[in-house]
């Protein structure tokens, strides 16, 4: 569905993304993880057409999409959400979602009606006529998801939809994302909440300092020495292994 090959992006002297390649397979959930400042959001921005890449190729459904503006990508079925939620602040939940629905609906009234179905799908039916300002963080995250879903995407890019949620809210969000996958939408997500990544993703890419340093199934990734070092610092894998061995010996 999505193939990113050798994408590089520099901001002045800082290389935010270097030769990054990844693939999101049709019907799967692919996760992109990495420590703060690794370049996840930049790479997301590049894929979604918000940030121009310096080099490399981004292919969506077999076609090169590098340089295609975001609104065209949305029409083709590639839609992103934002890590920092970007609601239409002065509008109600229904009106917010309807903006997404309008992409596939001919009339305004049909879009407003469809907004209700979408709200029900993400569990926001009771909140539909609330002003966005009255929503909690969890509510706004859901709205972000609902609006993107309303455009009927084929590939949905979720940028940290769990960030700022409490454990109970995360537990509610996980089945929701799985249900979206089951409805036939391919997902690429960045996430800090490892518990969510472990239970959701079929395939994980780890980005550190702008480079993909590891890829594989979630269970493989958590034992990868390079990944542990990226998160915990140089030598951490060695120490951790020592402690595990020590623990095993004591047992």
């Amino acid at each position, binding site marked *: 569905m999505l193939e990113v090959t050798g994408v590089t992006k520099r901001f002045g002297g800082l290389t935010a993304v270097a030769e990054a390649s990844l693939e999101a397979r049709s019907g799967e959930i692919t996760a992109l993880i990495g420590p703060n400042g690794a370049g996840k959001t930049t790479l997301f921005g590049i894929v979604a057409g918000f940030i121009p890449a310096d080099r490399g190729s981004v292919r969506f459904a077999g076609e090169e999409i590098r340089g295609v503006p975001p609104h065209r990508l949305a029409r083709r079925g590639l*839609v992103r959400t934002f890590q920092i939620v970007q609601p239409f602040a002065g509008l109600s939940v229904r009106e917010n979602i309807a903006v997404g629905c309008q992409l596939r609906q001919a009339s305004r009234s049909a*879009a407003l009606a469809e907004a209700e179905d979408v709200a029900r799908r993400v569990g926001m039916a009771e909140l539909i006529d609330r002003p966005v300002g009255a929503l909690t963080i969890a509510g706004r995250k859901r709205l972000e998801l609902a609006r*993107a879903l309303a455009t009927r995407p084929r590939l949905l890019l979720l940028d940290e939809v769990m960030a700022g949620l409490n454990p109970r809210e995360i537990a509610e969000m996980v089945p929701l994302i799985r249900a979206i996958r089951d409805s036939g939408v391919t997902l690429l997500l960045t996430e800090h909440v490892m518990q969510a990544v472990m239970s959701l993703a079929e395939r994980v890419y780890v980005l550190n300092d702008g480079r993909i340093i590891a890829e594989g199934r979630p269970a493989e990734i958590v034992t990868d020495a390079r990944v542990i070092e990226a998160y915990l610092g140089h030598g951490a894998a060695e120490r951790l292994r020592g402690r595990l061995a020590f623990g095993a010996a004591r047992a």
Partner: protein
Amino acid sequence: MKTPGLLAAAVVLALAPLPLLVHSDFWLHFAIMTLYFGLLGQAWNLLGGYGGQRSFGHAAFFGTGAYATAVLQLDLGVNPWICLVLAGIFGAAVGALVGALSFRYGLRGSYFALVTLAFAEVFRIVADSVPFTGAGVGLQIPLRQAAANFQFHEKAGFYAVILALTAIATALAWWIEHSRFGADLVAVRENEDAARALGIDVNRTKLWAMVLSGGLSGFAGSFYTQYFLYLDPRIAYGVEVSVTALLVPLIGGLGTVLGPLMGAVTLRGLNEVSGIVTGGAPGLNLMLYGALLIVILAFLPEGLVGLGPRLRRARLAGRFRHA
């Protein structure tokens, strides 16, 4: 959601027979100028109120419509009614030009406001120096009162024309509130990045708002020319038109169908009062406008249309307190 539209239609219908009831030229002039302010304010409102693109240079569109009307009939003998249509097209074209240039370079907020102001000022300076605008002397349109000539012996004729134009502008605002285009425009106002992510062509949406707004301003300029029959660069491209265009909806209520009409009534009323109080000293009306603006921004940030809901809330709160 349907009420403002119905209310607007009712207002227009109720206003239509006014000349039959009011024979005083003073009051008809007041009604004409109020509607003219309403047209100019609604033009600005479509772009600034619904689209969030706050222009400080609507004189650029207004003045172009005004000069199109004057120059085309004086130099080429075009019928003023055709000039009215052309003024709308010219205003829209200038709107498209200014929009294409500023949106292409991503100008927003105060940068956009400054660029529109700069365009209006450049047009004023150009109009001041080229011969076909009459430069600083201005253009006088010869008096030939005939309906076919878009000059009326009775003020009622002008009243009918400006009522129709303002009704069109109000209908456009109503359409914006109910159409996909309007929803796109509001989404762009609220959050450009989110709008873009959801498939809205942000620049195209803003550009169309510029075209509509510029077109309506062009009509206003054309009407002004035919009503006063005189034009100079300061009238056409001066700051006063730009300020009026933005004050009317700001005071009445941004992004609402009826706001500009309410703002127009208030400003025109204030204008008349200031004329009486200050003996028509030039510029003092602007001081009063400023004072009113401060009061509105401090106590009624949604504009005068926010007054109704606010009073209702206050009354409800009062009832709870007594209960």
